[in-house]
């Protein structure tokens, strides 16, 4: 067994969206390096509950790096020090005995803090609702193999589709821009033949919603790509920008329907 760790946590505590928050110090004693980061917080929380204090609130669910619900800024880095790793997949072997660890929620105008390290990311859902889909109502589409898709395109689409919507990209960006998230969905659908009919209306609508949610703009810092636990690339932003310019130049308002015969 490897040696257990004794750590000091500086945790952002905030009662709700209306109250001010502050950092509070907690010891995390006798932590096994095999624990995940969230299991370390579980241990701290169990101790707090037993003392009658409120445990630290943080979002989490699958704890296997795919649902995207967890995420906090650990020592200034979204999801912590390990590349391509969500908070839940970070393990305590990445820390040393005696370390001080600062924990903060995602900081962005568009993500109000609900409590402690938990924020409201509803803006992401509203961006998807504005156009992040292919309109294919449930029914009887053609056979799946009737539309061959070059493997390269399918693979690139899958690269973009791997986004888990955790919002680390926004937290990492000095402008709190959501362009990595938005462009990943736009790229995935624009790379596939099924996504072509709505390609340009989609990019217009999603960018408009992104702006309405008060995310910042991209100034090519690249922090998003570094913070992304799923390796989503900035090339998606380039694709989105190209499509957005084309969409803006070629936009015509929709014409009315044909009427009833």
């Amino acid at each position: 067994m490897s040696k257990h760790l004794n750590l000091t946590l500086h945790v952002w505590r905030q009662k709700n969206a209306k109250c001010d928050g502050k950092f509070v110090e907690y010891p995390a004693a006798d932590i096994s390096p095999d624990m995940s980061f969230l299991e370390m917080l579980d241990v701290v929380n169990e101790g707090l509950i037993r003392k009658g204090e409120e445990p630290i609130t943080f979002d989490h669910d699958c704890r296997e790096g795919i649902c995207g619900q967890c995420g906090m800024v650990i020592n200034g880095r979204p999801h912590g020090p390990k590349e391509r790793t969500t908070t839940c997949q970070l393990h305590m072997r990445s820390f040393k005995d005696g370390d001080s660890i600062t924990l903060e929620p995602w900081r962005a105008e568009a993500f109000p803090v609900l409590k402690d390290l938990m924020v409201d990311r509803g803006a992401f859902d509203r961006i998807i609702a504005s156009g992040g889909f292919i309109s294919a109502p449930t029914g009887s589409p053609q056979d799946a193999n009737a539309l061959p898709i070059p493997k390269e395109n399918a693979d690139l689409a899958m690269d973009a589709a791997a986004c888990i919507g955790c919002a680390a990209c926004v937290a990492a960006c000095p402008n709190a821009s959501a362009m990595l998230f938005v462009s990943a969905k736009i790229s995935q659908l624009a790379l596939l033949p099924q996504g072509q009919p709505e390609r340009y209306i989609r990019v217009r609508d999603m960018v408009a919603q992104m702006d309405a949610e008060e995310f910042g703009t991209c100034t090519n810092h690249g922090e998003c790509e570094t913070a992304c636990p799923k390796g989503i690339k900035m090339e998606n932003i380039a694709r989105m920008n190209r499509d957005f310019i084309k969409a803006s130049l070629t936009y015509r308002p929709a014409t009315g329907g044909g009427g009833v015969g």
Partner: protein
Amino acid sequence: MELNSRIPDGPIEKKWDKHKFDLKLVNPANKRKYKVLVVGSGLAGGAAAASLAELGYEVECFCYQDSPRRAHSIAAQGGINAAKNYHNDGDSVRRLFYDTVKGGDFRAREANVHRLAEVSNNIIDQCVAQGVPFAREYGGLLDNRSFGGAQVSRTFYARGQTGQQLLLGAYQALERQIGLGTVKMFSRHEMQELIVVDGVAKGIVTRDMVTGEIKSHLADAVCLATGGYGNTMYLATYAKGCNGTAIWRAHKKGAAFANPCFTQIHPTCIPVTGDHQSKLTLMSESLRNDGRIWVPKKKEDCGKPASQIAEEDRDYYLERKYPSYGNLAPRDIASRAAKQVCDDGRGIGETGLGVYLDFEAAISRLGANKIEEKYGNLFEMYERITDDNPYKTPMRIFPATHYTMGGLWVDYNLMSTVPGLFVLGEANFSDHGANRLGASALMQGLADGYFVIPYTIGGYLAGIKPGTRIKADDPAVKAAEQTTSERVQKLFAINGKETPTHFHRELGKVMWEFCGMGRNEAGLKKALQRIPEIREEFWKNLRIPGSGDEVNQSLELAGRVADFLEIGELMCLDALERRESCGGHFREEWQTEEGEALRDDENFCHVAAWEHKGEGQAPVRHVEPLAFENVHLATRSYK
């Protein structure tokens, strides 16, 4: 209680077609006058909410996560089955049906399984139309792989993230409807009560997990798609938030609970490292296509590194015992075989509860690049958790609770014993019998949501007069709201010393030991004595800090653990009463000389559906006999 399965007449291939025609339709102009609640936003719930809204119904959808995109369907790695026969290897609807009935060890309803196989192909078409980026071959056509318990390549996949991609497809369809205003989404809301008037489901009570507000939602029909109750075991591959609360509270309002003891223990998960463990992580079954499972032949070799154990001293026990299926044997069989070698003292790792999953042969045959292309993300995930490199040393794996085949009883229309209450996906019991085959859960969730409920719920709603929903001042509504607030107050009032997790962990230990991979009468009786004791301690010594009118994760967990403490008891009772072994339910008293499950078709070829009789009263076991007219009852053999 009457269990009428409402299976249509006629030959099995024609039942669903005939039934779809026989179901009454709702006039298109009337659809918007009906409101349907969908609880849960995973594959079943997300697909149902989107599809029902597309048809024109007014839909409200609820999830406990911060967004419908988080539902735990997202974590499914391996794939989804469909009978496309794209590979010309002998697949067909009939064969998928046959494999699923046999894989379930003859404890599923034939008619439901056949319908599942029939619509499997529509699912793939639908998902491709939505832009799900399934894996493709260089010619641009869809790629397939084979999966546990099948001898054809019928599994469609998107790298190791098939569940994620299918869920995002359903989520995007759902968000589209939310954007159009046809679905109202309630994230961070947890269902607390089912509202029942004159025996008919009329709505639900929810708690807003941000403000603590307790509110009723009234409708013409309610769909529960809230997943399985496997977290009763505490350590499981489920997300931490997965719970049995919605189905359990519906059960207490009259919905029969079918086959609660049918749980799936998945053979390939990362072993436990210590008491701090909060969940277990699955390694996709697809790894068994190329990985070979083994333990040392000699106990004294167990402490040595794998590389120092000579080839002839390794026991590839699945290949030895099941030569025709080998490492691809169904999950229940592979899990039990792992338990047997560990019980035999030949388990590996610090705890002795582990077996090797070795890629050395595949890497030398195909090259590390090919293996990386197929399983790269899984290998990375394994290394992140264990700090071991599976390209160099074999993975260590052990079985863990993964899925519940049991759930609320439903008829052919997916309606429970409470009229107006429909149950979809893992939350119902219907299609997997006593063991689920790999890549069948995604298929069932989407089948129920996209292609079954849109038809069957119409048949139900057509029989209700539009505009007859109950009003908010109905006594049943007030009573359900009051029950909810009283429960919250009662939990705070205990003011004891222990955390909700403490009791959950205690329950989990009992469940895993006595109602896990091996069960026997003495153990189950012990569990049935121990669980009420833990429950009593819970209600005496629980502590929840904070208040109920804000975010309070301890309160949320306490409510769920209170239900697990009751569900666990019913699981053990059902396991005790099912005096046979079948699929994942292995009663040690019923086994062949070779240690295989021994069914008792004479006495137990049925679904056991439990009726709640009130607090402190013993539940009553009802029986729905199963008829096997197309796949004849036989002992499963994977040898």
